[in-house]
């Protein structure tokens, strides 16, 4: 090899780590950059852009870019697209790397060398980091780095990323990175004419460069750098004149590379005593994907995940809420009433609380995901579940997002990041909020308790079976959500995919022990990103909802009216009451007045007026304006529906005991004496809450995960239309059969 060293290290500003998924690239990135990293997104897409800084032995500081893992420079997913575009220098938002570090898994050399064969053709300064040689040598294999360097024509540095071995040598080698000069792998003779015809039509480039472009054009690659070349009339004429179909050229090109790879592997790898099928991974897999034990262990792991998100997170969420509430009290406690106090207490601190409350679930979810992904189990989980989910157009990897969504759609939507294929990821995001989350439970509880509980069935033959009826309705809510998700996902498969089958071609990586540092890092970056990105949107929308319930203020004459009406009822204090009892009665009376004013204020506010305005729209569903106000407030979080009704019905705090609210809604009547709330209204509301998209936090997270507003808005409209139609049919049909 005659290539000269690229440059002195001072000429290097940026290096990029490229390599296959599961080659240990991120571990090496961490070893190179330590804590000096930042994680952002490539503009407009959800692919993570991880950059860090690294000090070279001579003190020179460079930027290190960790590219998404890719099997090929012909992209199959947004992640691979980014890796390809950065490496080809097609992204204006990212500097072209001065040195490419090709990270190669020594224990899986052949498949890893395929990408290297494409990187070599970029003709940019390059170093190969030969990673995981410890796994290879544990198997008795050895990879001769010197021989490999000779074959590739670039420096090859053995490293063990998670132990930091070889990292200094790699840093030192950057300055001696060389531009590879291996000739392009020859295609069989029958393609030579086509390649040279197209190559000759490409203007003003060296011959070998032209032929590489010609091969990519003939193989029907669609990368952005080819568009301009293809647009040239001479080139497009040459392309149409060739007799070969693109697939044949594509296949010949890949076969030529693997032909070369087989020869290289035979020369540099000493297989030793290694027998495929005898590794630790094979023995672990015999249990973990076993038809019986595998499914049992999978069930156990998923049950643990679910219980953790549902039950373990709960007290932590309570602590987060209390901490924010305590802070809020500290700030606003000494303040007199008024707009500023309400803004701070019910707007700002409630908004912050509404963001922070999700942190325990998100942190715990990513703790699980990081451990499962790093160990290699997540790919097995997808392998086990794919059959079930592919039937409705989802992916084996959709299982964890769906399961997490039963606790909360926010971690659920965030967990879809592990799904590489865009269509299946979007479908999963779209249907995840149909899973009945924990925020719906207080609503289900109130409605089922008020209309299918003791008050309804006491003294009837059904009384002993109340638990069964209530449990059955609760179960029906969960089943309805799952059905809606299945039908929607199937619709996505039909319309979104437009017939294109997304392949499930998934590597099952070697099992590894998760690196604690990497696990902590993932939990931290994902939680921090939720707080900074989705959190700000949730916070702003919370303030908007607060203002809608707070303004305009009830005029003084209206307050007086409510007060007079309240005072008109005589205050009864029994003659034998003690001083304490009398004080208690007076306090209760004052609290009643406060509740009555709050209720009148809410009715007078923008929310209350919207509730009145939309009454004609929601009346066919069986709802009056008070329910309408509750539905609007529930956009902050579904469980707010309950506390909002408590304000409308002026029953005070329902945190401890919902019975006064249950009694109040059952007693409420229209002017004509007809009850506002009937069991059919409750069922209609249950259907609405199962199906409706009523959560600004989820919408904010979907916006963040899909990189724009079109998907979250589509989801918002779609789910609410489905919910409206379903609740309408339920109420109209139900009330005709069972009576109002």
């Amino acid at each position: 090899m005659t290539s000269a060293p690229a440059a002195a290290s001072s000429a290097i500003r940026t290096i990029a780590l490229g390599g296959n998924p599961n080659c240990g690239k991120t571990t090496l990135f961490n070893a190179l950059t330590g804590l000096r990293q930042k994680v952002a997104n490539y503009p407009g897409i959800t692919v993570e852009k991880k950059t860090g800084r690294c000090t070279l032995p001579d003190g020179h500081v460079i930027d290190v870019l960790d590219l998404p893992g890719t099997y090929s420079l012909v992209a199959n997913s947004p992640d691979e697209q980014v890796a390809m575009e950065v490496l080809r220098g097609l992204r204006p938002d990212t500097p072209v790397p001065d040195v490419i570090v090709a990270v190669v898994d020594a224990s899986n050399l052949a498949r890893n060398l395929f990408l290297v064969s494409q990187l070599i053709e970029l003709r940019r300064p390059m170093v190969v980091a030969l990673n995981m040689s410890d796994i290879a040598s544990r198997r008795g294999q050895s990879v001769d780095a010197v021989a490999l360097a000779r074959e590739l024509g670039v420096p090859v540095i053995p490293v063990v990323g998670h132990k930091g071995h070889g990292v200094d040598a790699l840093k030192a080698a950057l300055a001696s990175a060389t531009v590879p000069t291996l000739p392009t792998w020859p295609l069989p003779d029958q393609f030579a004419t086509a390649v040279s015809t197209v190559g000759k039509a490409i203007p003003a480039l060296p011959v070998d460069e032209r032929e590489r472009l010609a091969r990519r054009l003939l193989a029907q690659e669609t990368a952005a750098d080819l568009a301009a070349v293809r647009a040239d009339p001479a080139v497009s004429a040459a392309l149409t004149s060739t007799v070969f179909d693109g697939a044949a050229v594509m296949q010949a090109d890949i076969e030529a590379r693997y032909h070369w790879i087989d020869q290289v592997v035979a020369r540099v790898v000493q297989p030793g005593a290694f027998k495929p099928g005898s590794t630790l991974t094979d023995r672990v897999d015999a249990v973990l994907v076993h038809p019986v034990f595998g499914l049992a262990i999978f069930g156990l792991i998923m049950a643990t995940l679910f219980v953790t998100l549902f039950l373990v997170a709960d007290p932590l969420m309570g602590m987060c809420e209390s901490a924010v509430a305590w802070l809020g009290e500290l700030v606003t406690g000494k303040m007199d009433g008024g707009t500023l106090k309400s803004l701070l207490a019910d707007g700002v601190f409630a908004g912050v609380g509404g963001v922070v409350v999700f942190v325990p679930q998100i942190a715990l979810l990513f703790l699980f995901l990081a451990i499962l992904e790093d160990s290699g189990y997540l790919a097995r989980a997808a392998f086990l579940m794919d059959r079930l989910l592919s039937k409705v157009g989802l992916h084996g990897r959709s299982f964890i997002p769906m399961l997490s969504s039963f606790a909360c759609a926010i971690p659920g939507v965030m967990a879809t990041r592990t799904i590489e294929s865009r269509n299946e990821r979007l479908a999963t995001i779209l249907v995840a909020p149909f899973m009945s989350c924990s925020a719906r439970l207080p609503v289900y509880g109130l409605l089922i308790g008020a209309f299918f509980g003791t008050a309804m069935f006491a003294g009837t033959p059904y009384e002993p079976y109340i638990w069964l009826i209530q449990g059955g309705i609760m179960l029906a809510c969960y089943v309805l959500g799952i059905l809606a998700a299945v039908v929607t996902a199937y619709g996505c498969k039909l319309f979104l995919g437009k017939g294109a089958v997304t392949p499930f071609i998934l590597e099952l990586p070697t099992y590894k022990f998760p690196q604690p540092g990497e696990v902590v890092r993932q939990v931290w970056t994902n939680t921090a990103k939720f707080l900074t990105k989705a959190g700000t949107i949730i916070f702003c929308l919370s303030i908007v909802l607060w203002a809608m319930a707070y303004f305009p203020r009830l005029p003084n004459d209206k307050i007086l009216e409510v007060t007079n009406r309240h005072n008109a009822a005589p205050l009864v204090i029994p003659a034998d009451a003690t001083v304490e009892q009398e004080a208690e009665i007076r306090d209760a009376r004052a609290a009643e007045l406060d509740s009555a004013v709050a209720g009148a204020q809410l009715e007078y506010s923008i929310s209350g007026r919207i509730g009145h305005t939309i009454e004609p729209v929601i009346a066919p569903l069986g709802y009056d304006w008070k329910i309408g106000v509750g539905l609007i407030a529930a956009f902050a979080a579904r469980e707010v529906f309950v506390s909002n009704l408590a304000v409308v019905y002026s029953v005070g705090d329902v945190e401890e005991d919902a019975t006064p609210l249950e009694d109040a809604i059952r007693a409420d009547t229209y002017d004509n004496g007809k009850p506002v709330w009937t069991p059919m209204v409750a069922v209609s509301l249950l259907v609405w809450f199962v199906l409706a998209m009523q959560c600004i936090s989820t919408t904010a997270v979907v916006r963040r995960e899909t990189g724009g507003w079109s998907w979250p808005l589509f989801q918002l409209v779609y789910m609410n239309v489905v919910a409206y139609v379903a609740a309408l049919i339920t109420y109209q049909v139900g009330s005709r059969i069972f009576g109002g």
Partner: protein
Amino acid sequence: MNAPLPTLPGALTLDRFAPGSQVQVLNVTGALPIRRRLLEMGLCPGVAVDVIRRAPLGDPLEVRVRGYLLSLRLDQAAQVSVASLTTTPAAVA
């Protein structure tokens, strides 16, 4: 498990082999993007492939190719035409 080989030699595709069989890839067919990815993952004509197992629910398939483990749905495995390398044919109907 030990059903006789189908009479049409061209009808042998990777999805029809039971765990334990070893096959050699003859060709990869089908729509370009999936065909390209199967080849890129190392399923090139001539390479030996061990069928390891099927997922408990019957699909996908797990194979070992070029020393690593790869899973693919039966739909995609049907795009890979193969010849049996095992002496006892282990093709499943």
